[in-house]
């Protein structure tokens, strides 16, 4: 049952092959039996899930079921869930029970979905390996001692290990696409503003975007149908029509042109990875797609620009964690300064502190122009590069990451080399564009992914290409061997 896709489970529930309670219990059992190994969940909400499943079954009996009623999913622990711990992977929020639901959570509740639990993540979504969680690292289900990627590593590992048919993630610089690639699943970062950020704990507000993480593009479309939409509580959410993302999955790709940015295929790309992308190209060519070399010159600067803008925003966003109203508070503060200093020193982990310091520095008087303003200028150039490219091509193809998953601990003393693993993903956030990572084979028995980037609001096009590819290949069907011993 657990190898079924979200779409298949939805169809089975519709056909009453089994109930929501049954499928929910099945996944809860799997989590119970297997997740000790992967650590992909921070909180498992079994009672809550079964109550939701019962309600879903009752709704179905009354003929009130929607497309995803009764389907289990998991929420990244960055989305606020009313009455349920929302830790954001941090000691700072280990004691935080959110009094409200994020818009995304509300939408899944309204759609009748069942929440199995809250998935592990890098603390405050800062990281590319899921080693920065207060709750311990997540293990990649494909290989012990290997990272699942981050920051949505728990969601990626849980979907790969078939502990949930789908999960939400958030992507600030690649945090959906990179772990999706490293765990062999499909992950979509929508256009900035497509999915409401209300109730999503902020890391870098101008870059953060929630999206689905699933086995297939079809599943991603189904989840995005629930997640997307204008939210008047989020001033940056886009007041545009939300299409049915499943409606165009089977459109013919013939005559479409995909751009290959030469900057993504230079000497930094390993021959192994290049081979995998070539394989994708061949498959897409068979489907009638033309390819064209393009240039995205400014993307070379995306890492430095990203590592100014994201820390700058995070340094401000994380100021509210001060030990005064909620979250971790130090014992017996002697003064206000002591309260702030110890609460924050104890509550935040190393990577979070590092980024707060970088960001605080970048915004300081005398440095603002040299760092922050310059980074914004680069951001504009990157945006323009993409805009120009999309006058010639319908989408852009490249690798999602330079390499497959690395070993746990391998890069934890070398933040710069870890930051560089975001090289293909951050530009997409800086430009606010949609991007999807889909599995495209393996290197040394570890999955890798390719990334499709689309023009603003063209998620449907990306899902269409990805789905067609998945109809003709089986990379996405490969799953790690993890059966209970």
């Amino acid at each position, binding site marked *: 049952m657990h190898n079924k896709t979200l779409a298949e489970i939805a169809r089975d529930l519709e056909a009453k092959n089994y109930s929501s309670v049954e499928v929910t219990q099945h996944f809860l059992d799997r989590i119970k039996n297997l997740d000790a190994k992967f650590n992909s969940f921070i909180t498992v909400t079994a009672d809550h899930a079964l109550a939701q499943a019962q309600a879903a079954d009752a709704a179905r009996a009354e003929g009130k079921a929607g497309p995803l009623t009764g389907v289990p999913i998991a929420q990244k622990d960055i*989305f*606020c869930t009313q009455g349920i711990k*929302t830790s*954001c992977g941090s000691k700072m*929020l280990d004691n*935080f029970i*959110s*009094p*409200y639901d*994020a818009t995304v959570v509300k939408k899944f509740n309204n759609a009748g979905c069942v929440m199995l639990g809250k998935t592990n993540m890098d603390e405050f979504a800062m990281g590319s390996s899921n080693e920065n969680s207060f709750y311990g690292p997540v293990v990649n289900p494909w290989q012990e001692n290997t990272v699942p990627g981050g920051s949505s590593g728990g969601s990626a590992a849980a979907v790969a290990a078939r502990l949930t048919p789908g999960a939400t993630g958030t992507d600030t610089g690649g945090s959906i696409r990179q772990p999706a690639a490293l765990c062999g699943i499909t992950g979509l970062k929508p256009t900035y503003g497509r999915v409401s*950020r*209300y*109730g*999503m*704990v*902020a890391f*870098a*507000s*101008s870059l953060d975007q929630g999206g689905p993480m699933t086995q297939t593009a079809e599943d991603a479309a189904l989840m995005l149908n629930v997640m997307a939409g204008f939210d*008047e*509580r*989020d*001033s*940056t959410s886009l007041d545009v029509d939300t299409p049915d993302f499943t409606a165009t999955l089977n459109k013919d790709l013939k005559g479409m042109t995909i751009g290959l940015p030469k900057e993504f295929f230079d000497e930094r790309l390993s021959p192994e990875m290049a081979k995998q992308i070539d394989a994708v190209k061949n498959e897409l060519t068979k489907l009638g797609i033309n390819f064209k070399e393009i240039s995205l010159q400014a993307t070379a600067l995306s890492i430095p620009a990203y590592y100014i803008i994201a820390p*700058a*925003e995070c*340094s*401000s966003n*994380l*100021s*509210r*964690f*001060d030990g*005064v*109203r*909620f979250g971790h508070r130090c014992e017996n503060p002697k003064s*206000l300064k002591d309260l*702030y200093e110890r609460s924050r020193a104890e509550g935040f982990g190393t990577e979070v502190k590092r980024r707060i310091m970088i960001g*605080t520095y970048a*915004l*300081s*008087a005398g440095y*603002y122009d040299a760092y*922050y303003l310059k980074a914004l200028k680069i951001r504009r150039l990157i945006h323009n590069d993409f805009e120009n490219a999309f006058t010639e091509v319908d989408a852009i193809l490249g690798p999602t990451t330079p390499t497959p998953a690395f070993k746990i601990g391998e890069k934890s003393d070398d933040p710069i080399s870890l930051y560089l693993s975001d090289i293909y993903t951050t530009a997409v956030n800086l430009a606010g564009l949609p991007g999807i990572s889909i599995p495209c084979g393996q290197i040394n028995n570890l999955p890798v992914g390719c990334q499709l980037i689309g023009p603003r609001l063209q998620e449907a096009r990306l899902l269409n290409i990805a789905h067609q590819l998945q109809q003709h290949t089986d990379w996405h069907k490969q799953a790690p061997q993890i059966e209970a011993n």
Partner: protein
Amino acid sequence: MEWEAVIGLEVHAQLNTKSKIFSGSATNYGAMPNTQICDIDIGLPGVLPVLNMEAVHKAITFGVAIGAQINDQSVFARKNYFYPDLPKGYQISQFELPIVGVGHLDITLEDGRSRRIGVTRAHLEEDAGKSLHEDFQGLSGIDLNRAGIPLLEIVSEPDIRTAKEAVAYLKTLHNLVRYINICDGNMQEGSFRCDANVSVRPKGQEKFGTRTETKNLNSFRFVERAINYEIERQIEVIESGGVIMQETRLFNADTNETKMMRSKEDANDYRYFPDPDLLPVRVTAEQIRQIKSTLPELPAEKQQRFVDDLHLSTDTATTLVSNKALADYFETGLKAAPEHGQLVANWVIGELLGALNKASLDITQCPIPAEHIGTLVARIIDKTISTKIAKTVFETMFNGEGTPDEIIEAKGLKQVTDTAEIEKMVDEIITQFPEQLADYRSGKDKLFGFFVGQAMKASKGKANPAQLNEILKTKLQN
């Protein structure tokens, strides 16, 4: 050496919107602590601000009223600093691109001269909460009811030269924000507060001296005292060979002194940057035109109308428009005696303000409805009562005992204008005082007053004074 002060004022005016600037919470003053707050106001993880367009509307209204440039695009920025009553660790404000640009305010000085004071800018921001340091046994309480209340920070050019000018500017501004209904102006409740930037320079020198900023002056009197203290202090420091340091100072109302709060070195680096949670505010020409067309009559326009159309003296008009509630009161009262503006105004400014003063009330707490003052004047005009009796009626009204007509009726105060009746009364008086009559007739003119007094007394003040005089004069001579 002769010194000159250079003063610039920053005013924080609380905008009187029903809900907060970035959330739907109520903005009423004086509610129980932390009862007017929501997830957004307390800065819970994940919450986002949504701009209250009513606050934008009020800011634009202000800009239009001071003839300012309204920026078609303005940007909210985060001002980052840690304080327990600042829930997010940053205040959402406007920095590089404020909504209101350069404008001006014309003020009238005590000697009647007019001066134009430049307004550099006015920007929208959210207020912080309040820290309560008493009643918590060594701990501090935080009340976040005020957190997120919209403020308009209005920054003047350093065009002001004396404490008196500063007060005149503030009073003009205070009056204006109430005229255009963007702020209730309640200074005790902190709805209108002021920081004063003060420096001194030798008269004739163009370069500004080093300035200090004195914070949170919440009455006109404190502003005047604090500025005067600061001017004297700075002159004294410089004359005795010292230098003024750029610093923030606090005014102590008990000692009338300012004290250093923090030096420039200790000042926060606020690390302003555009708030990524909010889009730039765009204002269209059509919006500005619409607001302009619905702008209420401004104080200067009202004053001109009072002089031109109602023929009030300039002084009277100035006094009336200095307070919107007073001007409104006057205009309501005027309806009952539309041809007699100056007389109505005299009653309002003279008797009424005097009585209110004595009772420590302001015009909004006036026990006499404005219509009744108008009626009172109308009864003088139509000779129902004399001015003197009107004063009695006024006092009775002030004590809340009814309308002028009810009081006149109940107390039998209606003026006697029947000539026969007055003649009869005069005849009686004359016969009662034969000696005085003889003296008067032999040339003691002064005794005329004595007879007027006696006759008025006999009529209980109700005899029409003019008629009485006329009749007495005739009868005494015969």
